[in-house]
């Protein structure tokens, strides 16, 4: 159906699509209902790889022992999405496909260097999460493809996650950050650019032994925050700097 019909929208938890539909900002269209595709709900550890089905809900990710053990920052992110009602329906694949710059799981997947598994009638392909987004709400997913799973290898180092918003629940982030502390630190941010981003130059500086003040200065140049209805560029810059320092001191060895 996705291959043959234009404009068909895959529908999973509907926690964002139906908001637009109810509000009138999403034109009525044909949806293909994915909810019943049980194999896409599976969360499993295969060898060293954690595989999370695209239809895994936030609640499932929170409760999964494998996620808690291997990718605790994902469970943490899932806990801060919406409220219980949203967590029971919203899905990982939906968060990825929705492609919001503020998606709460996206910095986690970026920092974990995940792989997105896509399937169409012509077969299956794997795309590194790092290159998945090509622009504001644009991704490498072709219209005839479904995201079927996300795969994450072993993440070496301490995982850290923080979402900053108007309140602790039911808030789209002003800034959201996921990071991993190791000799090669990884820092990913949402809500400060058209897509989720990695602070590659900041990471390199820290890996080379730069102090956190210098690193914060580099980070400033890697983000492109804007003024929008949730926050201002200036506030976001300040918060990014604070989160960076918080990450660094929270994960300091000893």
């Amino acid at each position: 159906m996705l291959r043959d019909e234009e404009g068909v929208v895959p529908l999973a938890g509907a926690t964002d699509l139906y908001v637009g539909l109810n509000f009138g900002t999403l034109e009525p269209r044909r949806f293909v209902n994915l909810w019943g595709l049980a194999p896409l709900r599976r969360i499993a550890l295969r060898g060293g790889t954690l595989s999370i089905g695209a239809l895994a809900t936030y609640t499932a990710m929170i409760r999964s022992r494998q996620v808690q053990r291997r990718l605790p920052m994902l469970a943490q992110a899932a806990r801060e999405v919406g409220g219980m009602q949203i967590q029971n329906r919203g899905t990982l694949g939906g968060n990825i496909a929705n492609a919001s710059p503020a998606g709460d799981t996206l910095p986690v997947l970026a920092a974990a260097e995940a792989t997105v598994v896509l399937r169409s009638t012509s077969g299956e392909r794997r795309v590194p999460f790092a290159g998945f987004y090509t622009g504001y709400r644009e991704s490498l997913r072709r219209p005839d493809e479904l995201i079927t799973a996300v795969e994450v290898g072993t993440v070496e180092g301490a995982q850290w996650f923080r979402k900053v918003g108007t309140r602790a629940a039911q808030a789209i982030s002003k800034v959201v950050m996921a990071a991993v502390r190791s000799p090669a630190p990884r820092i990913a941010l949402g809500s400060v650019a058209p897509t989720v981003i990695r602070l590659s130059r900041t990471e390199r500086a820290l890996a080379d032994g730069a102090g956190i003040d210098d690193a914060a200065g580099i980070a400033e140049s890697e983000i492109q925050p804007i003024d929008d209805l949730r926050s201002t560029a200036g506030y976001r810059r300040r918060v990014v700097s604070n989160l960076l320092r918080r990450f660094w001191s929270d994960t300091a060895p000893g």
Partner: protein
Amino acid sequence: MRITLNGAPRDLACHPAARLLDVLREECGLTGTKEGCGEGECGACTVLIDGAAVCSCLVPAAQVSGASITTIEGLGDDHPLPRAFMDEVGAQCGICTPGMIMTAVTLGSRPSLARIRVALAGNLCRCTGYEAIYRAIRKP
């Protein structure tokens, strides 16, 4: 499509993309579930699908085919929670109350205040200031 609604089988005639909220209120005549925002923010439309609390304003009818749905009407007259809400004056205008109770049902007995706060994060009340609601839910 066939569902189980408050313990009884029921066939729905609605459009598959219809909101579960509208199906419950209009086709099924169960107006206890309220619309507060239509965007999953307020929780007034909370019902249980297979025991899990969801915002029915965001659930397409097609996705509940074969599922068991519980609304506020399904709790019955002897359920302790609605009585506790009455005793503790946990309702003023009452618009949030069915949603609050359905969310609270998922907590089981004697939940801690910390668990209640987290569970109710998706249910907004403009009247009570929440304290009476928490007291009602904590009542043994």
